[in-house]
């Protein structure tokens, strides 16, 4: 879990960086998502990245399967449950509900892939005028003008935040980080990461819906 | 005549000479020899581990759910060893001498010297096993001082030394279990020893889960079942601690040595009501800084902090100006009882005295102020700094006190009262730890041998491990070397049959009484008799009454006890009834022993035998012996004496004035 988790975390860094290119619009409205489109094009065409993409899918699948197997195994260890269970006072709710949060994320992921990855890679997209790459930005602007989808995306990002809040530091401890100084550091970084990354992601549908970017 | 089998020669050579000449059992023969170990505390776990490792086939039994829970685990203070790491003049001889003197000259010299000799090896052994003793910044082992000695020889692991030592022995035991050398039977209680042709050959025990009786054969049987302080109902012993194993052995021929020698620890949390089931010890170290007092006025109901200084009676400082609050355990306990009996006790029950830290807080606070150079510190600042120092030294004990009583010892004096803590008496054993039944051994608190009439702090752990790791592995060979031709006796042997039938009959009888009173209520009554008349101070009149009362109680018990449930199931009341029935019989013997010993020594204080100032008066002329009692049928005992010869440590009178 921890290895695939950390791998997916590293993917998130790249994902958020590239997507953040859309915010170029805020400063150069005439850019019209071009910077983002070019970055997306690079990601879609580079052989290296395409190969990594398979790794990513495998990573996701392993993480998901492992997660469910682990959860099922662990749940079966109790046998008869408690009438009252407050032992949780010492643990965070999101630490105990990684399976549920993960499931929400999985649903989100399916929706997300069907929104962007499928059109971009399989069903095809119109190209940017005069350029030989897809206009993924237009697609984003389209999709994120649906308020329901925006809300779902924001909820997805919140799930991601909590999933990361536990997962980030837990992954390092599972890998044996026990020096209290480093654990403190990792907890700090983990918290910052879990807030910043999902926040930036969530900002995208919101910005587009609110017409802060992609106005023209 | 009792033969203690003390080897000849000078005291300091006895043990090495013995080891040099003792018979050995060769490895192939060891595999054919079976040994039963009862109890898995320090003595039992260390013995089972050592013997298993040597190649014997060992079966170990405990009544707890795991061997790790034996009551050795609760020992707080530490373990003595003559290592002289502090270079303060310690030596084997000094440890030997302090132990003999602390025991008020009622212990056997040769055993105590051997104990002192192996003490250093115990520490080596435990460190090698990974026992995390406290260390200095140098990385070397730390020591502290304890009552009754002038050197720092006590090794410790915070306030949990017993736990760490026991876990070390438990792990060694589990290692042998994993290797198949030891078979562990937890939740099993021994209910009889099987003696065949004069030798101990096995046990009858009860599986406490199924209730079934089992027979187990052994070429030798080792009893490491601890002390019998619970005869007083309220003690610092665990709830399950009991006399049953050694009492059954006693009834099968093992003599009981000095049964009346009981140690009463002065600093325990007092009884809070009738519901109380057990007493909690507060470490002896608290007396280093605390001052003990009661009001000067009888029945004074004011809060302690409202009683002005000149209306307080610091009775230990008054009576023993030289040692003050640091007098030995027996003296401090008796003085507290004397004040409470005279009507000066405090608290709701009036059976407590104050242990006050106010002065210590002020003293430490002033010291801190001087250290920090705060010339114009307020009184509050001094108190605050003082409390911090006290917290650092005794914080965990103060926390425990708060948990139990709900009071804050930093602001209100603690209430303390003496409580039964340890029994120096136990089965009589010779130098080889054999009881008067060949093949039957007693070790640790279950035997009588090393502490005389009073045990020094931090010596119980030392004795348990010495017996198990270092003594029995040699001495048992001397017996088993002659047993190699004895094939395992099938448990269908008539003696096994008879023993099991007797046990079964007794259980049926207990279950069949179907009376009105609970086991617990009998235990409480017994405890009260023992505490009132055979406790901290005893007199002939009271002891005679106690014997009568116990006989009456016994009759009552056997005609009116109520045990619910069935035999073949988990039945904790039946377990308890078996134990309490034995405690009642033991109580009678303790009183008989206390009555016959017409002298005051160590923990045994006969009111008739005291100096004009009320101090204990020993009678070496008439009582310099071990009283070993032979069971001769219901309520009948024959006294045997083992004279004690002090060749090296000459008896003197103890004085703490």
């Amino acid at each position, binding site marked *: 879990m921890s290895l695939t988790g950390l791998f997916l975390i590293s993917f998130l860094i790249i994902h958020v960086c590239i997507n953040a290119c859309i915010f170029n619009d805020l400063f150069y409205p005439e850019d019209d998502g071009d910077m983002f489109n070019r970055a997306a094009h690079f990601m879609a065409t580079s052989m290296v990245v395409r190969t990594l993409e398979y790794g990513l899918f495998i990573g996701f699948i392993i993480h998901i399967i492992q997660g469910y197997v682990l959860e099922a*195994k*662990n749940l079966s*260890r109790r*046998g008869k449950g*408690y009438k*009252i269970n407050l032992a949780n*006072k*010492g*643990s*965070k709710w999101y*630490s*105990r509900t990684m399976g549920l949060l993960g499931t929400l994320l999985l649903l989100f992921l399916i929706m997300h892939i069907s929104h962007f990855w499928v059109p971009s890679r399989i069903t095809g997209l119109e190209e940017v005028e005069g350029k030989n790459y897809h206009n993924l930005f237009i697609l984003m602007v389209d999709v994120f003008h649906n308020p329901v989808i925006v809300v779902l995306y924001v909820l997805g990002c919140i799930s991601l935040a909590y999933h990361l809040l*536990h997962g980030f*530091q*837990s992954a390092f*401890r599972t*890998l*044996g980080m*026990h020096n209290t100084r480093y654990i403190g550091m990792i907890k700090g970084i983990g918290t910052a990461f879990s807030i910043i990354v999902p926040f930036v992601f969530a900002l995208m549908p919101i910005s587009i819906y609110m017409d802060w970017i992609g106005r023209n | 005549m009792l033969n203690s089998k003390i080897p000849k020669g000078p005291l300091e050579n006895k043990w090495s000479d013995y080891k040099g000449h003792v018979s050995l059992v060769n490895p192939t023969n060891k595999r054919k020899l079976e040994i039963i170990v009862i109890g898995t505390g320090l003595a039992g776990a260390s013995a089972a581990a050592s013997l298993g*490792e040597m190649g014997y086939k060992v079966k170990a039994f405990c009544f*707890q*759910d795991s061997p*790790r*829970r034996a*009551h050795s*685990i*609760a020992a707080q203070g530490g373990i003595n060893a003559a*290592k002289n790491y502090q270079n303060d003049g310690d030596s084997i001889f000094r440890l030997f001498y302090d132990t003999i003197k602390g025991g008020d000259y009622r212990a056997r010299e040769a055993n105590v010297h051997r104990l002192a000799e192996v003490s250093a*090896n115990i*520490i*080596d*052994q435990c460190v*090698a*096993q990974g026992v995390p*003793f406290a*260390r*200095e*910044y140098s990385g*070397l*082992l730390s020591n502290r001082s304890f009552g009754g000695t002038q050197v720092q020889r006590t090794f410790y*692991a915070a306030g*949990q030394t017993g*736990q*760490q030592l026991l*876990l070390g022995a438990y792990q060694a035991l*589990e290692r042998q*279990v*994993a290797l198949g050398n030891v078979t562990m039977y937890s939740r099993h209680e021994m209910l009889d020893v099987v003696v065949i042709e004069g030798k101990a050959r096995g046990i009858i025990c009860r599986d406490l889960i199924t209730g079934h009786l089992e027979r187990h054969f052994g070429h030798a049987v080792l009893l490491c079942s601890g002390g019998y302080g619970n005869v007083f109902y309220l003690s610092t012993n665990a*709830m399950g601690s009991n006399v049953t194993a050694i009492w059954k052995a006693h009834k099968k021929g093992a003599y009981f040595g000095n049964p009346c020698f009981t140690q009463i620890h002065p600093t325990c949390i007092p009884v809070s*009501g009738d*519901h109380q*089931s057990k007493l909690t010890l507060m470490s002896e170290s608290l007396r280093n800084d605390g001052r003990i007092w009661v009001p000067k006025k009888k029945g004074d109901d004011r809060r302690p902090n409202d009683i002005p200084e000149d209306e307080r009676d610091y009775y230990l400082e008054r009576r023993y100006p030289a040692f003050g609050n640091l007098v030995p355990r027996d003296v401090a306990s008796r003085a507290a009882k004397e004040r409470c009996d005279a009507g000066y006790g405090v608290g709701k029950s009036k059976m407590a005295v104050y242990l006050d830290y106010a002065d210590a807080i002020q003293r430490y606070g002033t010291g801190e102020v001087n250290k920090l150079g705060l010339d114009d510190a307020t009184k509050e600042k001094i108190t605050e700094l003082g409390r911090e120092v006290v917290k650092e030294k005794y914080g965990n004990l103060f926390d425990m006190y708060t*948990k*139990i009583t*709900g*009071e804050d010892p930093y602001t209100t004096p603690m209430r303390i009262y003496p409580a039964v803590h340890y029994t120096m008496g136990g089965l009589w054993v010779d130098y080889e730890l054999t009881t008067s039944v060949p093949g039957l051994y007693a070790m640790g608190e279950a035997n009588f041998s090393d502490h005389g009439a009073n045990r020094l702090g931090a010596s119980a752990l030392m004795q348990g491990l010495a017996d198990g*790791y270092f003594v029995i592995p040699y001495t048992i060979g001397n017996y088993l070397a002659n047993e190699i031709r004895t094939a395992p006796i099938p448990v269908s042997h008539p003696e096994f049959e008879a023993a099991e039938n007797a046990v079964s009959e007794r259980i049926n009888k207990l279950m069949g009484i179907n009376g009105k009173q609970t086991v617990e209520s009998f235990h409480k009554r017994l405890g009260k008799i023992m505490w009132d008349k055979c406790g901290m101070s005893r007199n002939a009149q009271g002891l005679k009454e106690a014997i009568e009362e116990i006989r009456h109680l016994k009759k009552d018990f056997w005609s009116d006890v109520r045990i*619910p*449930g069935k035999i073949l199931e*988990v039945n904790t009341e039946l377990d308890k009834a078996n134990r309490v029935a034995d405690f009642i019989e033991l109580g009678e013997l303790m009183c008989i022993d206390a009555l016959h010993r017409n002298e005051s020594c160590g923990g045994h204080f006969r009111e008739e035998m005291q100096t004009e100032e009320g101090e204990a008066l020993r009678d070496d002329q008439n009582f310099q012996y071990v009283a070993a009692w032979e069971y001769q049928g219901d309520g009948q005992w024959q006294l045997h004496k083992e004279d004690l010869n002090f060749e090296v440590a000459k008896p003197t009178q103890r004085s703490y004035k």
Partner: protein
Amino acid sequence: MDHSNISLTLEVWRQESASANGKFVTYKVDDVSPEMSFLEMFDVLNERLIREGQDPIAFDHDCREGICGSCSMHINGRPHGPWHATTVCQLHMRAFKNGDTIVVEPWRAKSFPVIKDLMVDRSAFDRIIQAGGYVSVNTGNVNGVDANAIPVEKDKADTAFAAATCIGCGACVAACKNSSAMLFMSAKVSHLALLPQGAPERKDRVLNMVAQMDKEGFGSCTFTGACEAVCPKEISITNISRLNKEYLNAGMTVDKR
């Protein structure tokens, strides 16, 4: 500290034997002194049950000083009840108010089957220790190696001691949503791995103990932290991280056999 006595309602899990079906039974207890310990309150209740001809409630207990690790009650949703760093035997009735309802359950985990009422079988812990929770040094056989021959850094010795204070009560398993025994096991692995005396066997020890824990059917650790929060001895969850490090290190460096 004068409090008046209180009345309580207890809902206690009663189960006749391992194979029987259990159920909750309600008992009213009056006149409970706030100075009683929780187990003494049970003693009083049991005395009453016996007098009334009922079967007393079976529960494990022994030292009643918070060190033997016998007591094991799940009280109002928490192992060992509401007080922090306290075993049931040290929990006092001051913790409750007049009229409170208290639900008392046994430890729940498949690896800790109920024996009777509130008693469970924790022998799995012994077997985990048997798998390697020791230093393989023979007893009585260390003559010549003085205890002070190997100095141990005080910090490490203190950390090892802190881990070694585990009392093996099983509250960690009872509280963990995964019924994991990792806190228990990591305490022993840490204790021995931190000391030079335990170092020679550290790799085999951790591999064997983990294998045994899995075999016993305990769940795995997902770092929810519930164990640490209920541990009466405040064993740090950091020990689990240390165990993981030991395990990975051993797994990657031990030769295949």
